[in-house]
Protein backbone atom coordinates (compact mmCIF):
# COMPACT_ATOMS: atom_id res chain seq x y z
CA UNK A 1 0.00 0.00 0.00
CA UNK A 2 2.72 2.39 1.06
CA UNK A 3 4.93 1.38 -1.85
CA UNK A 4 2.17 1.80 -4.35
CA UNK A 5 1.52 5.18 -2.79
CA UNK A 6 5.15 6.19 -3.32
CA UNK A 7 5.00 4.98 -6.90
CA UNK A 8 1.78 6.87 -7.37
CA UNK A 9 3.45 10.01 -6.08
CA UNK A 10 6.51 9.41 -8.18
CA UNK A 11 4.36 9.08 -11.23
CA UNK A 12 2.68 12.33 -10.28
CA UNK A 13 6.00 14.07 -9.81
CA UNK A 14 7.08 12.83 -13.23
CA UNK A 15 3.89 14.13 -14.81
CA UNK A 16 4.43 17.39 -12.96
CA UNK A 17 7.98 17.68 -14.24
CA UNK A 18 6.82 16.93 -17.76
CA UNK A 19 4.32 19.75 -17.36
CA UNK A 20 7.08 22.09 -16.23
CA UNK A 21 9.12 21.19 -19.28
CA UNK A 22 6.08 21.78 -21.46
CA UNK A 23 5.34 25.10 -19.79
CA UNK A 24 8.95 26.12 -20.10
CA UNK A 25 8.81 25.30 -23.80
CA UNK A 26 5.66 27.39 -24.15
CA UNK A 27 7.33 30.18 -22.24
CA UNK A 28 10.45 30.07 -24.37
CA UNK A 29 8.33 30.02 -27.52
CA UNK A 30 6.42 33.06 -26.27
CA UNK A 31 9.50 34.95 -25.27
CA UNK A 32 11.08 34.25 -28.65
CA UNK A 33 7.91 35.37 -30.42
CA UNK A 34 7.69 38.51 -28.34
CA UNK A 35 11.26 39.58 -28.85
CA UNK A 36 11.13 43.08 -30.29
CA UNK A 37 10.98 42.77 -34.08
CA UNK A 38 10.82 45.79 -36.28
CA UNK A 39 10.22 46.08 -40.01
CA UNK A 40 13.35 47.36 -41.71
CA UNK A 41 12.37 46.93 -45.35
CA UNK A 42 9.15 46.35 -47.32
CA UNK A 43 8.95 45.36 -50.96
CA UNK A 44 5.60 45.28 -52.77
CA UNK A 45 4.61 44.28 -56.27
CA UNK A 46 2.14 42.27 -58.33
CA UNK A 47 2.84 39.18 -60.37
CA UNK A 48 0.95 38.53 -63.59
CA UNK A 49 -0.56 35.08 -64.01
CA UNK A 50 -0.11 34.17 -67.67
CA UNK A 51 1.04 31.36 -69.96
CA UNK A 52 4.70 31.89 -69.06
CA UNK A 53 4.00 30.09 -65.78
CA UNK A 54 4.05 26.31 -65.50
CA UNK A 55 0.76 24.51 -64.94
CA UNK A 56 0.49 22.63 -61.65
CA UNK A 57 -0.52 19.21 -62.98
CA UNK A 58 -2.12 18.08 -59.73
CA UNK A 59 -4.45 21.08 -59.76
CA UNK A 60 -5.15 20.69 -63.48
CA UNK A 61 -6.07 17.02 -63.06
CA UNK A 62 -8.32 17.87 -60.14
CA UNK A 63 -10.24 20.49 -62.16
CA UNK A 64 -10.66 18.30 -65.25
CA UNK A 65 -13.73 16.21 -64.28
CA UNK A 66 -15.51 19.32 -62.92
CA UNK A 67 -14.79 21.14 -66.21
CA UNK A 68 -15.85 18.28 -68.45
CA UNK A 69 -19.22 17.89 -66.81
CA UNK A 70 -19.94 21.61 -67.26
CA UNK A 71 -18.71 21.66 -70.87
CA UNK A 72 -20.90 18.74 -71.81
CA UNK A 73 -23.90 20.58 -70.38
CA UNK A 74 -22.96 24.01 -71.72
CA UNK A 75 -22.61 22.77 -75.29
CA UNK A 76 -26.07 21.24 -75.47
CA UNK A 77 -28.06 22.97 -78.22
CA UNK A 78 -31.43 24.07 -76.90
CA UNK A 79 -32.92 26.28 -79.62
CA UNK A 80 -32.06 28.51 -82.58
CA UNK A 81 -31.74 32.31 -82.97
CA UNK A 82 -32.81 33.60 -86.44
CA UNK A 83 -30.54 36.65 -86.13
CA UNK A 84 -28.12 38.46 -83.83
CA UNK A 85 -29.98 39.92 -80.87
CA UNK A 86 -28.43 42.50 -78.61
CA UNK A 87 -29.56 45.10 -76.12
CA UNK A 88 -28.89 48.10 -78.35
CA UNK A 89 -30.69 46.99 -81.52
CA UNK A 90 -33.61 49.33 -80.88
CA UNK A 91 -34.40 52.60 -79.10
CA UNK A 92 -36.73 51.93 -76.16
CA UNK A 93 -37.25 48.26 -76.94
CA UNK A 94 -34.74 45.67 -78.15
CA UNK A 95 -35.11 42.19 -79.62
CA UNK A 96 -33.29 40.55 -76.71
CA UNK A 97 -35.17 42.63 -74.14
CA UNK A 98 -38.55 41.72 -75.64
CA UNK A 99 -37.59 38.05 -75.69
CA UNK A 100 -36.44 38.14 -72.05
CA UNK A 101 -39.53 39.93 -70.73
CA UNK A 102 -41.90 37.72 -72.74
CA UNK A 103 -40.26 34.48 -71.66
CA UNK A 104 -39.99 35.45 -67.99
CA UNK A 105 -43.70 36.36 -68.07
CA UNK A 106 -44.81 33.14 -69.74
CA UNK A 107 -42.54 30.83 -67.76
CA UNK A 108 -43.49 32.47 -64.43
CA UNK A 109 -47.17 32.33 -65.24
CA UNK A 110 -47.03 28.51 -65.24
CA UNK A 111 -45.80 28.53 -61.63
CA UNK A 112 -47.72 31.57 -60.40
CA UNK A 113 -51.12 30.46 -61.72
CA UNK A 114 -50.78 27.05 -60.17
CA UNK A 115 -49.87 28.57 -56.83
CA UNK A 116 -52.26 31.52 -56.62
CA UNK A 117 -54.87 31.01 -59.33
CA UNK A 118 -53.98 34.46 -60.69
CA UNK A 119 -52.29 35.34 -63.97
CA UNK A 120 -49.40 37.74 -64.55
CA UNK A 121 -50.25 41.09 -66.13
CA UNK A 122 -46.79 42.55 -66.72
CA UNK A 123 -43.13 41.60 -66.72
CA UNK A 124 -40.48 44.23 -66.01
CA UNK A 125 -36.74 43.59 -66.08
CA UNK A 126 -33.76 45.94 -66.28
CA UNK A 127 -31.70 46.81 -69.33
CA UNK A 128 -28.45 46.50 -67.36
CA UNK A 129 -29.30 42.92 -66.39
CA UNK A 130 -28.74 41.69 -69.96
CA UNK A 131 -25.05 40.84 -69.89
CA UNK A 132 -24.39 39.46 -73.39
CA UNK A 133 -25.99 39.28 -76.84
CA UNK A 134 -27.58 36.17 -78.36
CA UNK A 135 -25.70 35.48 -81.61
CA UNK A 136 -27.48 34.14 -84.68
CA UNK A 137 -27.41 30.35 -84.80
CA UNK A 138 -27.70 27.56 -82.28
CA UNK A 139 -28.57 28.60 -78.72
CA UNK A 140 -26.70 26.56 -76.14
CA UNK A 141 -26.98 26.34 -72.36
CA UNK A 142 -23.87 28.53 -72.38
CA UNK A 143 -25.92 31.30 -74.08
CA UNK A 144 -28.24 31.50 -71.07
CA UNK A 145 -25.24 31.75 -68.73
CA UNK A 146 -23.68 34.50 -70.87
CA UNK A 147 -26.87 36.58 -71.03
CA UNK A 148 -27.76 35.99 -67.38
CA UNK A 149 -24.68 35.18 -65.29
CA UNK A 150 -26.33 36.32 -62.05
CA UNK A 151 -28.36 34.18 -59.71
CA UNK A 152 -31.34 36.54 -59.90
CA UNK A 153 -34.64 34.92 -59.16
CA UNK A 154 -38.20 35.77 -60.25
CA UNK A 155 -40.72 37.33 -57.87
CA UNK A 156 -44.29 38.43 -58.63
CA UNK A 157 -45.34 41.72 -57.02
CA UNK A 158 -48.97 42.81 -56.97
CA UNK A 159 -49.04 46.60 -57.39
CA UNK A 160 -51.71 49.26 -56.98
CA UNK A 161 -52.70 51.24 -60.08
CA UNK A 162 -50.92 54.19 -58.45
CA UNK A 163 -47.63 52.28 -58.41
CA UNK A 164 -48.24 51.11 -61.98
CA UNK A 165 -48.41 54.81 -62.92
CA UNK A 166 -45.17 55.35 -60.97
CA UNK A 167 -43.62 52.52 -62.97
CA UNK A 168 -44.67 54.07 -66.27
CA UNK A 169 -43.36 57.48 -65.19
CA UNK A 170 -40.05 55.84 -64.20
CA UNK A 171 -39.77 54.13 -67.59
CA UNK A 172 -40.61 57.37 -69.44
CA UNK A 173 -37.99 59.33 -67.51
CA UNK A 174 -35.30 56.62 -67.65
CA UNK A 175 -35.46 56.54 -71.46
CA UNK A 176 -33.69 53.20 -71.37
CA UNK A 177 -34.85 50.04 -73.04
CA UNK A 178 -35.83 48.28 -69.83
CA UNK A 179 -37.48 45.07 -71.02
CA UNK A 180 -41.28 45.03 -70.62
CA UNK A 181 -44.03 42.59 -71.52
CA UNK A 182 -47.81 42.93 -71.25
CA UNK A 183 -47.44 46.69 -71.20
CA UNK A 184 -47.34 49.15 -74.12
CA UNK A 185 -46.17 52.73 -73.70
CA UNK A 186 -46.21 55.60 -76.16
CA UNK A 187 -44.30 58.82 -75.47
CA UNK A 188 -44.44 62.14 -77.29
CA UNK A 189 -41.37 64.13 -78.27
CA UNK A 190 -41.18 65.60 -74.73
CA UNK A 191 -41.18 62.21 -72.99
CA UNK A 192 -44.82 62.70 -71.95
CA UNK A 193 -46.81 59.48 -71.77
CA UNK A 194 -49.56 59.66 -74.41
CA UNK A 195 -50.77 56.09 -74.05
CA UNK A 196 -50.14 53.26 -71.58
CA UNK A 197 -52.04 49.99 -71.91
CA UNK A 198 -51.89 46.75 -69.97
CA UNK A 199 -52.71 43.84 -72.27
CA UNK A 200 -54.43 46.30 -74.61
CA UNK A 201 -56.61 47.94 -71.95
CA UNK A 202 -56.30 51.26 -70.13
CA UNK A 203 -55.12 51.18 -66.52
CA UNK A 204 -58.07 51.13 -64.11
CA UNK A 205 -57.86 53.14 -60.91
CA UNK A 206 -58.33 51.07 -57.75
CA UNK A 207 -57.35 47.85 -59.52
CA UNK A 208 -54.17 45.88 -58.70
CA UNK A 209 -51.83 44.41 -61.29
CA UNK A 210 -49.37 41.53 -61.01
CA UNK A 211 -45.79 42.22 -62.11
CA UNK A 212 -43.16 39.54 -62.63
CA UNK A 213 -39.70 40.94 -62.01
CA UNK A 214 -36.34 40.01 -60.51
CA UNK A 215 -35.66 39.86 -56.79
CA UNK A 216 -32.85 42.35 -57.42
CA UNK A 217 -35.23 45.02 -58.76
CA UNK A 218 -37.94 44.29 -56.22
CA UNK A 219 -35.39 44.94 -53.47
CA UNK A 220 -34.67 48.44 -54.73
CA UNK A 221 -32.14 47.71 -57.48
CA UNK A 222 -32.00 50.44 -60.17
CA UNK A 223 -34.13 52.55 -57.78
CA UNK A 224 -37.36 50.96 -58.95
CA UNK A 225 -38.98 52.06 -55.69
CA UNK A 226 -42.50 51.39 -56.93
CA UNK A 227 -41.74 47.67 -56.49
CA UNK A 228 -40.65 47.98 -52.89
CA UNK A 229 -43.95 47.75 -51.01
CA UNK A 230 -46.29 45.59 -53.08
CA UNK A 231 -49.78 44.55 -52.00
CA UNK A 232 -48.66 40.91 -52.21
CA UNK A 233 -45.33 39.34 -53.07
CA UNK A 234 -44.81 35.80 -54.34
CA UNK A 235 -41.24 34.50 -54.33
CA UNK A 236 -41.18 31.88 -57.08
CA UNK A 237 -37.73 30.37 -56.29
CA UNK A 238 -37.25 30.27 -60.05
CA UNK A 239 -34.00 31.68 -61.40
CA UNK A 240 -34.24 33.87 -64.49
CA UNK A 241 -31.54 31.78 -66.13
CA UNK A 242 -33.47 28.58 -65.48
CA UNK A 243 -36.58 30.19 -66.96
CA UNK A 244 -34.50 30.97 -70.07
CA UNK A 245 -33.20 27.40 -70.33
CA UNK A 246 -36.70 25.94 -69.85
CA UNK A 247 -38.09 28.29 -72.49
CA UNK A 248 -35.31 27.59 -75.01
CA UNK A 249 -35.95 23.88 -74.66
CA UNK A 250 -39.62 24.42 -75.49
CA UNK A 251 -39.17 26.24 -78.84
CA UNK A 252 -37.38 25.40 -82.10
CA UNK A 253 -36.63 28.99 -83.05
CA UNK A 254 -36.89 31.98 -80.74
CA UNK A 255 -38.69 35.15 -81.86
CA UNK A 256 -36.40 38.12 -82.57
CA UNK A 257 -38.57 41.14 -83.18
CA UNK A 258 -39.44 44.68 -82.24
CA UNK A 259 -43.20 45.24 -82.01
CA UNK A 260 -43.53 48.87 -80.90
CA UNK A 261 -44.39 48.06 -77.27
CA UNK A 262 -42.39 51.05 -76.02
CA UNK A 263 -41.96 53.90 -78.50
CA UNK A 264 -41.40 57.63 -78.68
CA UNK A 265 -43.30 59.41 -81.45
Amino acid at each position, binding site marked *: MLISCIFYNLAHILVFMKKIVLLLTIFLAISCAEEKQSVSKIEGKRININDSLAV*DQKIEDFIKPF*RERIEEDMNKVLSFAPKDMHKNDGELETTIGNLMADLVKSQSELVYKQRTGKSIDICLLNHGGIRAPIPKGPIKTQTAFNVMPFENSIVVAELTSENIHNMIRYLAEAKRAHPISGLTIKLDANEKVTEALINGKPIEDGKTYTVATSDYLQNGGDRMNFLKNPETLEVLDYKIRNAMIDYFKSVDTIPARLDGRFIQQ
Partner: protein
Amino acid sequence: MADLFNNNFRKMKRRDFIQNSLASSAFVAMGGLSLQSFTASSAKKHITILHTNDVHSHIDPFGADHPRNPNQGGAARRASLIANIRKENPNTLLLDAGDIFQGTPYFNYYGGELEFKLMSMMQYDLATIGNHDFDNSIDGLYAQLPNANFEFVSANYDFKNTVLDTHVKPYKIFVKDGVKIGIFGLGVKLEGLVDKRMYKETVYNDPIETAQEMSRILKEEEKCDLVICLSHIGYHYKRNPERPSDLKLARATKDIDLIIGGHTHTFLPKPTIEKNSVGESVLVNQVGAYGIYVGRVDFYFDDAKNVIANGKSIIV
Protein backbone atom coordinates in the same frame (compact mmCIF):
# COMPACT_ATOMS: atom_id res chain seq x y z
CA MET B 1 -24.64 42.44 -30.37
CA ALA B 2 -21.66 44.62 -29.55
CA ASP B 3 -21.57 43.15 -26.05
CA LEU B 4 -21.10 39.63 -27.26
CA PHE B 5 -18.43 40.91 -29.56
CA ASN B 6 -16.58 42.45 -26.63
CA ASN B 7 -17.18 39.42 -24.46
CA ASN B 8 -15.40 37.28 -26.99
CA PHE B 9 -12.38 39.52 -26.78
CA ARG B 10 -12.50 39.51 -23.03
CA LYS B 11 -12.58 35.73 -23.11
CA MET B 12 -9.63 35.65 -25.47
CA LYS B 13 -7.72 38.04 -23.30
CA ARG B 14 -8.42 36.00 -20.20
CA ARG B 15 -7.12 32.86 -21.86
CA ASP B 16 -3.93 34.59 -22.87
CA PHE B 17 -3.50 35.95 -19.37
CA ILE B 18 -3.84 32.50 -17.83
CA GLN B 19 -1.36 31.08 -20.29
CA ASN B 20 1.15 33.83 -19.63
CA SER B 21 0.88 33.67 -15.85
CA LEU B 22 1.35 29.89 -15.87
CA ALA B 23 4.37 30.23 -18.05
CA SER B 24 5.91 32.91 -15.85
CA SER B 25 5.43 30.89 -12.66
CA ALA B 26 7.14 27.93 -14.29
CA PHE B 27 10.01 30.19 -15.15
CA VAL B 28 10.23 31.37 -11.53
CA ALA B 29 10.09 27.78 -10.28
CA MET B 30 13.03 26.79 -12.45
CA GLY B 31 15.10 29.68 -11.27
CA GLY B 32 16.85 32.12 -13.52
CA LEU B 33 17.52 30.78 -16.98
CA SER B 34 19.70 32.52 -19.45
CA LEU B 35 17.93 33.78 -22.57
CA GLN B 36 21.15 34.96 -24.15
CA SER B 37 20.89 32.31 -26.85
CA PHE B 38 17.87 34.02 -28.32
CA THR B 39 19.42 37.35 -29.09
CA ALA B 40 21.81 35.55 -31.41
CA SER B 41 18.95 33.94 -33.36
CA SER B 42 17.17 37.22 -34.05
CA ALA B 43 19.06 37.84 -37.25
CA LYS B 44 17.15 39.29 -40.20
CA LYS B 45 13.80 37.67 -40.73
CA HIS B 46 11.77 37.65 -43.90
CA ILE B 47 7.98 37.22 -44.19
CA THR B 48 6.28 37.02 -47.59
CA ILE B 49 2.60 37.89 -47.95
CA LEU B 50 0.84 36.69 -51.11
CA HIS B 51 -2.69 37.76 -51.85
CA THR B 52 -5.61 37.56 -54.25
CA ASN B 53 -9.04 39.19 -54.31
CA ASP B 54 -12.26 38.97 -56.33
CA VAL B 55 -11.20 35.80 -58.10
CA HIS B 56 -14.93 35.24 -58.82
CA SER B 57 -14.74 31.54 -59.61
CA HIS B 58 -12.19 32.11 -62.39
CA ILE B 59 -10.57 28.71 -62.29
CA ASP B 60 -9.66 28.38 -65.97
CA PRO B 61 -7.51 31.02 -67.70
CA PHE B 62 -9.24 33.46 -70.05
CA GLY B 63 -9.23 32.14 -73.62
CA ALA B 64 -6.68 33.29 -76.19
CA ASP B 65 -9.43 35.25 -77.99
CA HIS B 66 -10.69 37.13 -74.94
CA PRO B 67 -10.85 40.84 -75.85
CA ARG B 68 -9.46 42.18 -72.58
CA ASN B 69 -7.56 39.45 -70.74
CA PRO B 70 -6.31 36.89 -73.30
CA ASN B 71 -4.40 33.98 -71.73
CA GLN B 72 -4.54 35.61 -68.30
CA GLY B 73 -5.19 33.95 -64.96
CA GLY B 74 -5.86 30.29 -64.19
CA ALA B 75 -5.73 28.39 -60.90
CA ALA B 76 -3.20 25.76 -62.04
CA ARG B 77 -0.68 28.46 -63.00
CA ARG B 78 -1.32 30.39 -59.80
CA ALA B 79 -0.66 27.19 -57.84
CA SER B 80 2.76 26.67 -59.43
CA LEU B 81 3.74 30.29 -58.78
CA ILE B 82 2.73 30.01 -55.13
CA ALA B 83 4.57 26.71 -54.69
CA ASN B 84 7.76 28.26 -56.11
CA ILE B 85 7.57 31.27 -53.81
CA ARG B 86 6.94 29.01 -50.82
CA LYS B 87 9.99 26.95 -51.77
CA GLU B 88 12.05 30.13 -51.87
CA ASN B 89 10.61 31.42 -48.56
CA PRO B 90 8.75 28.96 -46.32
CA ASN B 91 7.68 31.89 -44.14
CA THR B 92 4.93 32.82 -46.57
CA LEU B 93 1.26 33.53 -45.91
CA LEU B 94 -1.34 33.27 -48.68
CA LEU B 95 -4.46 35.38 -48.22
CA ASP B 96 -7.67 36.19 -50.10
CA ALA B 97 -9.74 39.36 -49.68
CA GLY B 98 -13.14 37.96 -50.65
CA ASP B 99 -15.54 37.45 -53.56
CA ILE B 100 -14.19 33.99 -54.13
CA PHE B 101 -17.61 33.01 -55.49
CA GLN B 102 -19.66 33.91 -58.57
CA GLY B 103 -18.62 34.68 -62.10
CA THR B 104 -18.30 31.40 -63.97
CA PRO B 105 -20.45 28.26 -64.29
CA TYR B 106 -18.12 26.53 -61.82
CA PHE B 107 -19.97 28.42 -59.11
CA ASN B 108 -23.41 27.89 -60.63
CA TYR B 109 -22.80 24.16 -60.93
CA TYR B 110 -20.87 23.33 -57.78
CA GLY B 111 -21.76 26.17 -55.41
CA GLY B 112 -18.17 27.05 -54.49
CA GLU B 113 -16.99 23.52 -53.77
CA LEU B 114 -14.23 23.60 -56.38
CA GLU B 115 -13.09 27.13 -55.45
CA PHE B 116 -12.60 26.13 -51.79
CA LYS B 117 -11.01 22.77 -52.64
CA LEU B 118 -8.47 24.38 -54.96
CA MET B 119 -7.65 27.11 -52.45
CA SER B 120 -7.11 24.40 -49.86
CA MET B 121 -4.77 22.55 -52.25
CA MET B 122 -2.85 25.81 -52.78
CA GLN B 123 -2.68 26.08 -48.98
CA TYR B 124 -4.40 29.40 -48.56
CA ASP B 125 -3.92 30.48 -44.95
CA LEU B 126 -6.83 32.87 -44.47
CA ALA B 127 -9.63 34.71 -46.30
CA THR B 128 -12.29 37.29 -45.63
CA ILE B 129 -15.87 37.32 -46.89
CA GLY B 130 -17.02 39.36 -49.89
CA ASN B 131 -20.59 40.33 -50.76
CA HIS B 132 -20.76 37.73 -53.56
CA ASP B 133 -19.80 35.00 -51.14
CA PHE B 134 -23.42 35.31 -49.94
CA ASP B 135 -24.78 34.66 -53.46
CA ASN B 136 -26.01 31.18 -52.53
CA SER B 137 -27.16 32.67 -49.23
CA ILE B 138 -25.32 32.48 -45.93
CA ASP B 139 -26.42 28.82 -45.77
CA GLY B 140 -24.73 28.12 -49.10
CA LEU B 141 -21.50 29.59 -47.78
CA TYR B 142 -21.81 27.64 -44.55
CA ALA B 143 -22.41 24.41 -46.50
CA GLN B 144 -19.11 24.87 -48.37
CA LEU B 145 -16.98 25.52 -45.26
CA PRO B 146 -16.00 21.85 -44.84
CA ASN B 147 -14.24 22.13 -48.24
CA ALA B 148 -11.97 24.93 -46.95
CA ASN B 149 -8.86 23.97 -45.01
CA PHE B 150 -8.34 27.62 -44.22
CA GLU B 151 -10.25 29.97 -41.94
CA PHE B 152 -12.29 33.11 -42.54
CA VAL B 153 -11.97 36.33 -40.58
CA SER B 154 -14.39 39.24 -40.38
CA ALA B 155 -14.32 41.75 -37.55
CA ASN B 156 -17.22 43.99 -38.58
CA TYR B 157 -19.77 41.36 -39.59
CA ASP B 158 -21.56 40.11 -36.51
CA PHE B 159 -22.78 36.60 -37.26
CA LYS B 160 -24.20 35.91 -33.81
CA ASN B 161 -27.72 35.16 -35.06
CA THR B 162 -26.65 33.23 -38.14
CA VAL B 163 -25.30 29.78 -39.02
CA LEU B 164 -21.81 31.28 -39.30
CA ASP B 165 -21.73 32.11 -35.58
CA THR B 166 -18.40 30.85 -34.14
CA HIS B 167 -17.23 29.80 -37.63
CA VAL B 168 -15.84 33.22 -38.55
CA LYS B 169 -13.47 34.94 -36.13
CA PRO B 170 -12.60 38.64 -36.02
CA TYR B 171 -8.90 37.96 -36.43
CA LYS B 172 -6.27 35.25 -36.54
CA ILE B 173 -2.65 35.31 -35.42
CA PHE B 174 0.12 33.45 -37.21
CA VAL B 175 3.66 33.02 -35.91
CA LYS B 176 6.20 32.58 -38.71
CA ASP B 177 9.89 32.37 -37.85
CA GLY B 178 9.08 33.95 -34.49
CA VAL B 179 7.32 36.90 -36.12
CA LYS B 180 3.81 37.39 -34.81
CA ILE B 181 1.38 38.38 -37.57
CA GLY B 182 -2.16 39.47 -36.69
CA ILE B 183 -4.72 39.56 -39.49
CA PHE B 184 -8.27 40.86 -39.19
CA GLY B 185 -11.06 40.96 -41.76
CA LEU B 186 -13.47 43.69 -42.88
CA GLY B 187 -16.59 43.35 -45.02
CA VAL B 188 -18.59 45.81 -47.12
CA LYS B 189 -22.06 47.11 -46.19
CA LEU B 190 -24.49 44.45 -47.35
CA GLU B 191 -27.75 46.40 -47.31
CA GLY B 192 -28.61 47.52 -50.84
CA LEU B 193 -25.86 45.31 -52.28
CA VAL B 194 -27.01 41.84 -51.29
CA ASP B 195 -30.57 40.61 -50.88
CA LYS B 196 -31.44 40.46 -47.16
CA ARG B 197 -32.80 36.96 -47.76
CA MET B 198 -29.23 35.97 -48.59
CA TYR B 199 -27.28 37.48 -45.69
CA LYS B 200 -30.17 37.08 -43.21
CA GLU B 201 -29.32 38.31 -39.69
CA THR B 202 -25.71 39.28 -40.42
CA VAL B 203 -25.06 42.65 -38.75
CA TYR B 204 -22.70 45.11 -40.43
CA ASN B 205 -20.67 47.33 -38.08
CA ASP B 206 -18.65 50.39 -39.07
CA PRO B 207 -15.40 49.13 -40.63
CA ILE B 208 -13.26 52.11 -39.63
CA GLU B 209 -14.25 52.00 -35.97
CA THR B 210 -13.81 48.23 -36.00
CA ALA B 211 -10.35 48.58 -37.56
CA GLN B 212 -9.29 51.07 -34.87
CA GLU B 213 -10.33 48.58 -32.21
CA MET B 214 -8.73 45.63 -34.01
CA SER B 215 -5.38 47.33 -34.57
CA ARG B 216 -5.29 48.28 -30.88
CA ILE B 217 -5.99 44.71 -29.80
CA LEU B 218 -3.49 43.19 -32.21
CA LYS B 219 -0.72 45.71 -31.53
CA GLU B 220 -1.11 46.50 -27.85
CA GLU B 221 -2.70 43.40 -26.37
CA GLU B 222 -1.56 40.64 -28.69
CA LYS B 223 1.79 42.37 -29.28
CA CYS B 224 1.87 41.50 -32.97
CA ASP B 225 4.95 42.45 -34.97
CA LEU B 226 2.86 42.84 -38.11
CA VAL B 227 -0.79 43.87 -38.42
CA ILE B 228 -2.62 43.16 -41.67
CA CYS B 229 -6.16 44.12 -42.62
CA LEU B 230 -7.90 41.85 -45.10
CA SER B 231 -10.58 44.12 -46.49
CA HIS B 232 -13.48 43.82 -48.88
CA ILE B 233 -14.75 47.38 -48.39
CA GLY B 234 -13.27 48.74 -51.64
CA TYR B 235 -10.20 50.78 -52.51
CA HIS B 236 -11.65 54.26 -52.99
CA TYR B 237 -14.95 55.80 -54.12
CA LYS B 238 -14.29 58.84 -56.29
CA ARG B 239 -17.94 59.86 -56.55
CA ASN B 240 -18.66 59.14 -52.90
CA PRO B 241 -15.47 59.93 -50.97
CA GLU B 242 -17.30 59.69 -47.62
CA ARG B 243 -18.00 56.00 -48.13
CA PRO B 244 -15.67 53.77 -46.07
CA SER B 245 -12.77 52.61 -48.25
CA ASP B 246 -9.26 51.24 -47.87
CA LEU B 247 -7.70 54.68 -48.39
CA LYS B 248 -9.96 56.24 -45.75
CA LEU B 249 -9.22 53.31 -43.47
CA ALA B 250 -5.46 53.74 -43.91
CA ARG B 251 -5.64 57.42 -42.95
CA ALA B 252 -7.97 56.95 -39.98
CA THR B 253 -6.09 54.16 -38.18
CA LYS B 254 -2.65 53.42 -36.80
CA ASP B 255 -0.50 50.32 -36.31
CA ILE B 256 -1.73 48.65 -39.50
CA ASP B 257 1.19 47.68 -41.75
CA LEU B 258 -0.71 46.44 -44.78
CA ILE B 259 -4.27 46.69 -46.07
CA ILE B 260 -5.11 44.03 -48.64
CA GLY B 261 -8.24 45.12 -50.44
CA GLY B 262 -10.97 43.88 -52.73
CA HIS B 263 -14.49 44.62 -54.01
CA THR B 264 -13.76 47.52 -56.40
CA HIS B 265 -11.70 45.32 -58.79
CA THR B 266 -8.96 47.94 -58.68
CA PHE B 267 -5.90 46.91 -60.68
CA LEU B 268 -3.15 48.73 -58.78
CA PRO B 269 0.14 48.52 -60.72
CA LYS B 270 1.90 48.69 -57.36
CA PRO B 271 0.87 49.12 -53.72
CA THR B 272 -0.20 52.61 -52.64
CA ILE B 273 1.66 54.15 -49.70
CA GLU B 274 -0.61 56.18 -47.43
CA LYS B 275 0.11 58.04 -44.20
CA ASN B 276 -1.87 56.81 -41.21
CA SER B 277 -3.32 58.89 -38.35
CA VAL B 278 0.12 59.31 -36.73
CA GLY B 279 2.00 59.97 -39.97
CA GLU B 280 3.44 56.49 -40.46
CA SER B 281 3.41 54.69 -43.79
CA VAL B 282 0.83 52.02 -44.49
CA LEU B 283 0.68 49.94 -47.64
CA VAL B 284 -2.63 49.48 -49.47
CA ASN B 285 -2.77 46.89 -52.20
CA GLN B 286 -5.39 45.32 -54.45
CA VAL B 287 -4.82 43.11 -57.48
CA GLY B 288 -7.90 43.73 -59.60
CA ALA B 289 -9.90 40.58 -60.13
CA TYR B 290 -10.24 37.08 -61.66
CA GLY B 291 -6.87 35.77 -60.51
CA ILE B 292 -5.04 37.73 -63.21
CA TYR B 293 -2.49 38.90 -60.66
CA VAL B 294 -1.12 37.75 -57.33
CA GLY B 295 0.01 40.49 -54.96
CA ARG B 296 3.32 40.02 -53.19
CA VAL B 297 4.55 42.03 -50.21
CA ASP B 298 7.84 41.10 -48.52
CA PHE B 299 8.57 42.27 -44.98
CA TYR B 300 12.17 42.17 -43.74
CA PHE B 301 12.71 42.41 -40.00
CA ASP B 302 15.56 43.55 -37.84
CA ASP B 303 16.17 44.38 -34.19
CA ALA B 304 14.13 47.42 -33.25
CA LYS B 305 17.27 49.37 -32.31
CA ASN B 306 18.86 48.71 -35.70
CA VAL B 307 15.74 49.97 -37.46
CA ILE B 308 15.71 53.12 -35.36
CA ALA B 309 19.38 53.64 -36.23
CA ASN B 310 19.17 52.81 -39.95
CA GLY B 311 15.57 53.71 -40.81
CA LYS B 312 12.97 51.76 -42.74
CA SER B 313 12.78 51.49 -46.52
CA ILE B 314 9.73 50.82 -48.67
CA ILE B 315 10.32 49.71 -52.23
CA VAL B 316 7.30 49.46 -54.51
